[in-house]
């Protein structure tokens, strides 16, 4: 195959997967995955554990060879043009892959050299990343002494020193405390704003919500939905009734009323105080629920109608809760698995 020209690489999709299949022995991690992602965005791959997210990222990073099918990164084939792909991508993994006995600066300079920088430009790139990720104070300490968030930011920085066109973040905040998560999020947002294309995997919906403008949901190695966050939320196509009770003991009773009115499964949020159900009838059902709650003398803190959260969309798509999907609304998604 001819190598694409710079202009073609510019206009080529960021990622293009055609019937991408990866098997490890008898385990099928990716099962005919289809995806086209345009450049210029933060793309989040969402999916439950074992859905194939990490395998997909590793395939993009040329660490896993597709068993069959095709995967192009900016128009370049991950198998035949692996060397070119590696120059384009920067990988930051689930495990922060930095050398603990080396300082942050030494780690960054080493990675920069391995991207192909000369000594002096490696030094400049490392210094720039240290500024960018606010690591100045710890840059000359051994990275083994870093906090989890600092180490993760250093790992992120190591993926940046080669000036990548595509940044791959595999579960960038897994295992971090809330403050460290914020730090990593801020860094990622800054990079996205400066025009770096980012592909991140996560099983945290709030993370996708915070960072991504395009979402791909995968399950069992296939794409089950893609779209903007708004499109995904619209895919349920209905409203959700959300009832907040002050006494968690009332949640079950509220749930029964919601199910009776909406004919859908009610869900109690992890906080035990919010009970929700998809309401096809919208305001009319809300009125009915208010009436029933009044008749049952159940005092509630709050009650309202809202658009579904990404969590609810996710659980609906991956089939964890039982909500029959409205065909018209589901049609708004480019459904990857039903070609």
């Amino acid at each position: 195959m001819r190598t694409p020209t710079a202009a073609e690489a510019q206009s080529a999709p960021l990622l293009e997967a055609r019937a991408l299949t990866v098997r490890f022995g008898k385990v099928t991690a990716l099962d005919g995955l289809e995806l086209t992602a345009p450049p210029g965005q933060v793309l989040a791959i969402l999916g439950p554990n074992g859905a194939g997210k990490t395998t997909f990222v590793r395939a993009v990073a040329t660490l896993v060879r597709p068993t069959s099918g095709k995967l192009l990164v900016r128009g370049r084939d991950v198998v035949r043009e692996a060397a070119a792909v590696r120059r384009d991508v920067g990988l930051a993994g689930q495990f922060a892959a930095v050398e603990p006995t080396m300082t942050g600066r030494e780690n960054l300079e080493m990675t920069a050299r391995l991207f192909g920088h000369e000594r002096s430009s490696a030094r400049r790139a490392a210094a720039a990343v240290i500024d960018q990720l606010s690591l100045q104070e710890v840059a000359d300490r051994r990275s083994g002494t870093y906090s989890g968030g600092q180490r993760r930011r250093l790992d992120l920085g190591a993926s940046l020193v080669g000036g990548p066109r595509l940044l791959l973040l595999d579960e960038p905040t897994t295992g971090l405390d809330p403050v460290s998560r914020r730090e990593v999020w801020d860094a990622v947002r800054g990079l996205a704003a400066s025009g770096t294309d980012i592909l991140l995997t996560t099983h945290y919906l709030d993370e996708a919500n915070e960072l991504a403008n395009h979402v791909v949901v995968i399950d069992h190695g296939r794409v089950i939905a893609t779209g903007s966050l708004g499109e995904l939320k619209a895919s349920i196509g209905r409203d959700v009734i959300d009832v907040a009770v002050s006494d968690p003991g009332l949640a079950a009773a509220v749930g029964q009323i919601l199910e009776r009115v909406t004919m859908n499964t009610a869900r109690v949020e992890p906080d035990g105080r919010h009970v929700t159900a998809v309401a096809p009838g919208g305001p009319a059902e809300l009125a009915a629920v208010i009436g029933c709650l009044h008749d049952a003398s159940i005092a509630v803190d709050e009650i309202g109608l809202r658009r579904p959260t990404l969590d609810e969309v996710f659980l609906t798509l991956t089939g964890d809760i039982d909500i029959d999907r409205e065909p018209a609304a589901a049609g708004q998604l480019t459904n990857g698995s039903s070609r």
Partner: protein
Amino acid sequence: MTATQLAMPQAITRPARPPGVTSAAGQVALRALRKYFRTPSLLVMGIVQSAMFLFSFRYVFGGAIHAGSTSYVDFLVPSYVATIVLFTGGGIAVAVAEDKVQGFTDRLLSLPVPRYSLVLGRTLADSATNMWSIVTTAAFGFLFGFRLLGIWQDGLAALGLCALYAVVFTVVFIVMGLFAPNAQAAQGMSLIAFVFAFISSAYVPATSMPGWLQPFSKYQPITPMVDAVRSLLVGSTSDVGLALAWSAVLIAVFTPIAVIRYRR
């Protein structure tokens, strides 16, 4: 977040070309060496371990072993130095396995480095640390009573052959680390080296072993390798050709395995 923080730093340019083999291998080696010399337990344990084993052989078992016409210390020390990497090399396998499990190898493989520079860099670094154990072990040998029988040039030649073995064994241990699922398994696998070290002419004369065991001792690589070191020390070259041939075979077999396995 302020607007200034939002810009991708100007200083980060894209390198014009991927790194060459020397530069990439150099970085891989530099990192391995830094890790070794900045982890005191690795540095000290290697020395303590080699001294303890030598002490035990020399003073504990040595009295019960008859090495023919030579004194046991003169029989033992050359082969002990030649095989010391088989004892300390487990650390190489462990380090390689750890890199794989902890994601460091993934990071390296995601970079545009020539694939064989990973093996080359690792081999350079570990051969260097192995040279360090060879030299310290030889020093302990002299401390425990070993004396050169021939001229110093013979001693140097023998040391050079040991250095070659250090490279050979390094590649073998790298392969073990690459096949081990984790560090503990790598440690376990490296015990295979003990089998080859012990069932050889390294620490006891092979003729003292039962008849059924002698063929294994005779035809496995360690016996000619240590015999060659002993020969060089007395100015002879017997077994040197065979030892060099074994070294070449081991490198020729294990290096491609390491390169291919790293690439996965």
